[in-house]
């Protein structure tokens, strides 16, 4: 699948003119590339997290791989190892980044980065949650503490209610 199809799809997006030089759509998340270790706290209890972000498929997508380990504890008596993947893509038509997560529990969550993110933070609001009961929504917020540290807050809301924090994870860079 190459030129002909690429042209078909390219026509859906806009082409910046010479007076409007294209911005790097990945600049906001470029810092994520690398290997990270995190400490998480929240409704599943306290856990440790290993995460990598790397560009794949010729740099067209940013791929996240995550393993969170929760040892047995009062909030999570059996403990658990949670894994998820995600792919970040640049939606040219909407001029935004789209985050699509695939969880081992079967959830497939799609988020779009909001334009109203506060300074120093990236906010992704859910657009669709598959294999989750209707009425739920989710939000991922990444607060950039330094080039080598960020905090991820994962929130859920149901039935039109307010978001509640499900987990908060502080990441520190292991390797670029």
């Amino acid at each position, binding site marked *: 699948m190459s030129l002909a199809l690429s042209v078909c*799809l390219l026509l859906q997006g806009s082409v910046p003119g010479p007076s409007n030089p294209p911005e790097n759509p990945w600049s906001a998340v470029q810092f994520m590339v690398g290997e990270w270790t995190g400490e998480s706290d929240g*409704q599943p209890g306290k856990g440790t997290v290993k995460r990598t972000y790397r560009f794949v498929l010729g740099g067209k*997508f940013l791929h996240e791989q995550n393993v969170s380990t929760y040892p047995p504890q009062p*909030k999570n008596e059996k403990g658990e190892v949670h894994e998820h993947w995600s792919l970040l893509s640049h939606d040219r038509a909407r001029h935004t980044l789209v985050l699509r997560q695939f969880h081992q529990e079967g959830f497939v969550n799609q988020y779009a980065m909001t334009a109203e993110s506060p300074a120093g933070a990236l906010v992704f609001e859910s657009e669709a949650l598959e294999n989750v009961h209707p009425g739920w929504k989710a939000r991922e917020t990444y607060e950039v503490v330094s080039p080598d540290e960020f905090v991820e807050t994962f929130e859920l809301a*149901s039935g039109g209610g307010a978001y509640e924090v499900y987990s908060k994870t502080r990441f520190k860079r292991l390797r670029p």
Partner: protein
Amino acid sequence: MQNIWIFLAVCAAAVSTGSPAGAAVPKGLEPLRFLLGDWQADGGGKPGEASGGFTFAPSLQDRVIVRTNYAEYPAAGDKPSSRHDDLMVLYATESGEVRADYYDSEGHVIHYAGSTPSVGELTLVSEVVRGAPRFRLSYKLGADGKLDGRFEVAPPGQPDSFAPYLAWTARRQNPGT
């Protein structure tokens, strides 16, 4: 909202039980077991003749099947050689329907809904998007163990007028887990 994510996980698990003992894929993906493994392929179509390979493997604690695929196009005429890579994640909905998300090295993202018309067959059809082409990706396992695949495209505004774009035949190199 005590452990709501675990609650949601239990809800999801409740609809995906019933797989045979030892199954490495959830119920909704069981009909796709024939695809697991490493495959080498030859084929061609509108972009030219190509060779390549792909792997279907369970991932995320056997919750999804991931296909990684590449195709190499030799130089032809004025066209230099080129390589295409893609990644596709196949998963099942709560009701057992197959879905797939496709990402490739040209930046395309395609969301497919799947069906298994008969044993050893998978057909993935993309959603209808106004003003955009629609895609159909099909696999059929032959009695000789070869896997035939084809990729078809329908022009914008004619979502059911699929025309061939690529076709290939693949031979299994290693069985899946």
